[in-house]
């Protein structure tokens, strides 16, 4: 992946330090992570020290320096979900995907991340997969939900 690959994204932003976070968000949205080349390209173009770009990229939760999976599974562990068993839901998702902890499955099908409150506390406990939110969740529903996304991937393949 050459630096030129990112030119299209970078040219959409004004060349000033304030653009750093929005531009990284855009790269993250398109690539699901921040490739090293992208950080270098951003640093050069916006005349921001690479260390600064790296600092920002590692400070905020929404950025990842590791490639993420095809489907983003966000398990809410906000307070309302926590008191209704959010942690157990998270544990179950990880067990179903054979993950030792938060992260990405070996086949890059799923990335699992606990998130602090998606703001649907009345539906606790909840899980969001990509853009779809599942409320009033029970552990027993999790295998089916994951299977749904797995079969999507198979159809696409």
């Amino acid at each position, binding site marked *: 992946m050459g630096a030129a690959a990112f030119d299209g994204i970078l040219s959409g932003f004004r060349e000033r330090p304030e653009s750093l976070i929005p531009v990284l968000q855009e790269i993250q949205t398109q690539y699901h992570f921040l490739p090293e080349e992208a950080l270098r390209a951003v640093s050069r173009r916006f005349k921001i020290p690479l260390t600064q770009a790296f600092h920002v990229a590692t400070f905020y939760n929404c950025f990842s320096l590791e490639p993420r999976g095809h489907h983003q599974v966000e398990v809410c562990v906000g307070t309302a979900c926590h008191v209704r068993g959010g942690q157990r839901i998270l544990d179950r998702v990880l067990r179903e995907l054979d993950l030792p902890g938060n992260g990405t499955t070996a086949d890059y099908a799923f990335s699992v991340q606990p998130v602090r*409150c998606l703001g649907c506390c*009345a539906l606790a406990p909840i899980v969001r997969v990509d853009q779809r*939110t599942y409320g009033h969740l029970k552990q027993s529903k999790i295998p089916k939900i994951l299977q749904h996304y797995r079969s999507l991937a198979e159809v696409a393949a």
Partner: protein
Amino acid sequence: MSAAPPRIVTLTDLRRAATRGRRTLLPKQPKILVGMGTCGLATGAEEVYEALLDEVQRRKLNYGVTPTGCIGWCGQEPLVDLQLPGQPRITYGRMDARHARELVRGVPHGDLKPKWAVGLLTGYENPLTGRRLRYSPQRARVDGVPRYEDLPLFRSQVRWAARNCGVINPASLDEYIARGGYFGLHKALSASAPAGIIAEVASSGLRGRGGAGFPTGKKWETVARQAATPKYVICNADEGDPGAYMNRTLLESDPHSVLEGMCIGAHAMGATEGIVYVREEYPLAVTRMREAIAQAEAAGLLGANIFSSGFNLRIRITKGAGAFVCGEETALIASLEGREGEPCQRPPFPAERGFCGKPTCINNVETWADIPLIVMRGGEWYAQLGTNSSKGTKTFCLVGAVKNTAMIEVPLGTTLRKVVEEIGGGVPEGRRFKAIQTGGPSGGCVPEALLDMEVDYESLTSAGAIMGSGGMIVMDDSTCMVDIAKYFLGFLADESCGKCFSCREGLRRLHEIVSRITEGHGSEQDIALLEDLAWMVRETSLCGLGQTAPNPLLSTIRHFRDEYLAHVREKRCPAKVCRQLIAYRIEPTLCNGCGACVKACTSVAILGEKKSPHRIDDAHCIKCGACLEVCQPNAILVE
């Protein structure tokens, strides 16, 4: 989108827009509204909406189907409202596509499906104008359907900031104007001097709704006094407190009220640029706000020479990048400037030197939404509700172990008991109330003994909690308070920006000690150590995050010391939550041997023949609780 919307330059233009808005707000044909906030969508409002549209088209009915925001009745989502001309508006709860279609089919025959209805509205107060949006004569009834005014959930609410939530279509500028919107901005630009507006805001007693409660008028005076230009107004919508979604609801349901508040503020303080800083976890709020800004610009309500008064304001949106600490104003500014969100020393306050070193007024979403009210009705009117030190109303999200989970708005000074027992309907049957957690991770847990406390900034602080942005999580006897303290400490240790040693390291040590207690390895000295260390973190941290971080811990130790003692002395978790201190057991006299638990168990820890009592093998049980979910005769006990 059809033709470009007409520009709104004069009062006449505004009135014309209001007339257009009234036509869709109270149409001559039947209208069906679908609550399409994030909560509604998560429960299937989209399918319901499409089913309604399809059914209406298929039957060639001249009915309107429109999305609306969230009226706050989160537990009944997805909500559908039927509004027939001259008749009360009927709300149906927990709808799905099939019921929605059936509802449409029934309307032409006068079958209004009262059995599915949960509430009935004959009108809706508009605090902005003092007039009532009239759906039907006030005495109109539909048999068997309770009126909103009689529902415990709604009868004590005063919806000022949330005045349009669930009433208007959030994508319709005209409907917002029909509810009196932007008349406040017109009044501010044409009739009031900036100093007069600030004086009104000061006299209203409005305090920052983000949680800290700083007097808004005072902040505005400071910004207005600064000579440096340009000045900025910022809307803080980085609603990071878990358990709180009032700001999301406001942005999704009524984005223009926030924009209007920002315009008025910018005029009063001489600012020319505005920024709305929204959490990226709220994609719908970002979309609705973006649309609202575009509409306001197209109509000339944002941009250059607004209402031909010579006043200019541009507003843009910035998405947060997922850092709780960015709700702190100096960290928020750092993030806007493209840096990591680490708070800085104050003073200088952002009001003096903020974004790009220029005077900046940062207010919460709800604070901005309250501003048009104060301009239209006056500071004195606003101050009629509330307590001595805290005026007006406040939105809260009531979630957790209550019957009615909802986003509510009540006058400050309402007692917690009223909020939990009347509005929330109390904890579900079979459970006992234990505590209410307010103020998010900076707040604390208030026990039953203090429930008669009136909610205002000072009283909550004295109980060891804080007002915070407005999350209220009700906990029953199945919640372990030590586990809650551990939860918040883990959250804050993760979210600490790491700048201050005491917060970065102190929170980790506190988390370790509490974890030790929940694992049954704690001692009584640990409790004293916790209090000592918590004091240190509070006293030596720079920003609000560190200074308030020990609150959940200290308030639970203060009000629920017996639970800590049970963990350290008897190695027992009274709420049966802490995994290392509990065991699962099947009661043989209750077990019918159906085998559901065997299927649910992922670790092959349940043994037994079909139709005879099962048992759990402790060596393999990971205490995940999957069996509890499926056991019909409730034979699985946690000890």
